[in-house]
């Protein structure tokens, strides 16, 4: 399915990440958004609110993030593609509805433009400290998909990707931006609509009498319906059977939750999206994502210029984690260590440690937020890990 050309602002633009995200949503066919203002995410819905009425859609400003994150799910069950955007405190408020979307297999996109926390923290300054919250923030066992763009161009591209993955796997997809990416203005190229491939919603082809809302297809994802079509279906956040009926059966609960997890985990290899630089002979791998990956690439180049074999591994899709690729790299002889650069005091680094175990040293280059790393700081950490050259100050 190709994008509707009316929603696609094809051409070369100078946009910030927030604006690019709004354009990505429109290009992806999203015509419904609900939100609550919060810095530094608000510009996304401001642009969306300006553009979407001309495309037969609407933006609804709700009374809080709880309302916004569930209103979009109502819209999805009415047949729309929908998203909401937020930051920090608002993201915390949305956690229950991320769980609801996971449990009810409601395809939707939630954008978190990360800022410094905890609590109100640093509203106008960047952080990457919601990364584990993105994975585990709602209660109970579940899996979801999270992407981390590092440029306005990627804010556009990955927003479309987020909508596509949401439809493909019937799952909430999180776009984990940060304040710098959101407010940084760069060249954004929006392709012609016919070059934008969209994943259509997987509607059932079965008649109502044969349809079971939570009977999975071969890839563990069930086909969907929307309200008003005569299916008389039931959706609940309670543990439910294939008919969608609530149950307290331990076996049914196990079957459901295992399937919700497996439909993502089993596809982790297909889901891996990664950018790699100089990894062929790298003795120090810097793993960084989002805005930090750009600083990290500079630091890697500085190291290379001084004869240190450093490389960059940038997960573009953060959850599910790129476990297989990381394990493969960690087995390579000659690897001195993995340096994880992130704007927090240790989140994704834990995931890296879990994946590589004791095979190779893993070290965090983190800080509490408010700014990006300085390339020099990461360069020094690379040098230290490589035990190679004198530090030039």
């Amino acid at each position, binding site marked *: 399915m190709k994008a*509707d050309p009316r929603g696609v602002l094809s051409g070369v633009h100078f946009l910030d990440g927030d604006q690019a995200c709004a354009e990505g949503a429109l290009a992806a*066919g999203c*015509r*419904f958004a*609900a939100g609550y203002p919060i810095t530094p995410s608000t510009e996304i819905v401001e642009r969306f609110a300006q553009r979407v*009425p*001309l495309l*037969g*859609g*609407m933006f*609804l400003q*709700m*009374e*809080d993030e*709880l*309302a*916004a994150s*569930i*209103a*979009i*799910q*109502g*819209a*999805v*069950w*009415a*047949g*729309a*593609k*929908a998203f909401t955007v937020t930051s920090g405190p608002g993201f915390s408020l949305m956690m*229950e*509805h991320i769980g*609801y979307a996971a449990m009810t297999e409601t395809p939707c996109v939630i954008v978190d433009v990360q800022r410094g926390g905890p609590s109100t923290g640093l509203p106008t300054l960047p952080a990457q400290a919601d990364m584990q919250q993105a994975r585990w923030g709602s209660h109970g066992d579940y899996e979801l998909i999270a992407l981390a763009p590092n440029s306005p161009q990627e804010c556009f591209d990955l927003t479309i990707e987020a909508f596509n993955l949401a439809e493909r796997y019937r799952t909430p997809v999180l776009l984990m931006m940060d304040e710098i990416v959101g407010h940084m203005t760069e060249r954004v190229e929006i392709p012609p609509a016919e070059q934008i491939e969209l994943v*259509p*919603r997987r*509607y059932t082809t079965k008649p109502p009498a044969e349809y079971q809302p939570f009977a999975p297809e071969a890839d563990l994802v069930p086909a969907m319906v*929307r*309200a*008003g*079509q*005569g*299916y*008389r*279906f*039931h*959706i*609940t*956040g*309670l543990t439910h059977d294939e008919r969608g*009926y*609530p149950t307290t059966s331990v076996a049914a609960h196990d079957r459901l939750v295992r399937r919700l997890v497996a439909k993502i985990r089993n596809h982790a290899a297909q889901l891996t999206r990664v950018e790699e630089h100089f990894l062929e002979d790298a003795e120090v791998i810097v793993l960084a994502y989002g805005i930090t990956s750009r600083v990290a690439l500079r630091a890697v180049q500085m190291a290379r210029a001084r004869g240190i074999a450093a490389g960059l591994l940038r997960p573009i899709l953060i959850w599910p984690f790129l476990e297989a690729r990381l394990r493969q790299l960690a087995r390579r002889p000659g690897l001195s260590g993995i340096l994880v650069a992130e704007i927090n005091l240790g989140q994704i680094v834990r995931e890296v440690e879990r994946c590589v175990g004791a095979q190779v040293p893993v070290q965090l280059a983190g800080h509490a937020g408010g700014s990006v790393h300085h390339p020099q700081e990461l360069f020094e950490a690379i040098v230290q890990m490589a035990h190679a050259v004198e530090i030039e100050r």
Partner: protein
Amino acid sequence: MSTQQSLPPNPVETLLRTDRMPHIWCPGCGIGTTMNCFARALQQARLDLDKVVIVSGIGCTGRVAGYAHLDSFHTTHGRAIPFATGLKLANPELTVVVYSGDGDLIAIGGNHFIHAARRNVDLKVICVNNFIYGMTGGQVGPTTPATALTSTTPYGCPEQPFNLPHLAESAGAVYVARWTAYHVRQITHSMVEMFRKSGFCFLEILSPCPTLYQRRNRLGDGLEAMKYYKEASVTRHGAPTKEVALSFQGPIVVGKFVDVERPTYLELLNQQLARALEAQYTGCIEEHVRG
């Protein structure tokens, strides 16, 4: 069996997921009674049931969606109204009914309640008010009358409860009525009126909770509660909602209090956008959007 088929069926049966009966509600609970009224009102209003959607929150009344043989959504606690808002605005053809309890709609969901009323979103909100949190074991709620005993006010409730019709009207509801589970014909009639009206409609139904509210307060069983409703109720259509506050076992003013016309959110949105964008505006949430 052939003779049975020639009988007119129980009107509620067509609305029920009969494979889920018997339901979980206690003996003497009034929620099922309100569902009878709901079923008959849907029939009387001649709505296409394929286009009627029911949205509930969490709690005893929150289970109504699960028993209703309609497109039905059992959402999160307190959030039935914002879910229903998204659903209705993304497909205005649907008749969207929010059916939930007082704790769900008014305590945890209170903010959404007032804002949906303010916006005049076209929702039919049915609130079964049993004065207590039933599902969790009888705790004090925003409608618990002062002095009433609950599991978390074991020495009596010190708080003043919300006067729900007054709250709804103040926030902007275009239709506000209150009945008790005793007033089955009136409930049915009010529901029909709501189905025929556009905008934020609110119906409060006082209903027995024999297991928790009645028993803890030594008020007898469900039937005793129904007899109290019958005796204590005074019908005053058009009564100023300010004057219809409830008190512990006091008089109950019932009736239709508000029935006014006001453009819905969607009408206002369409007007505003058409005015601002003129010919460029082709309407919100076009058919193609709904896939």
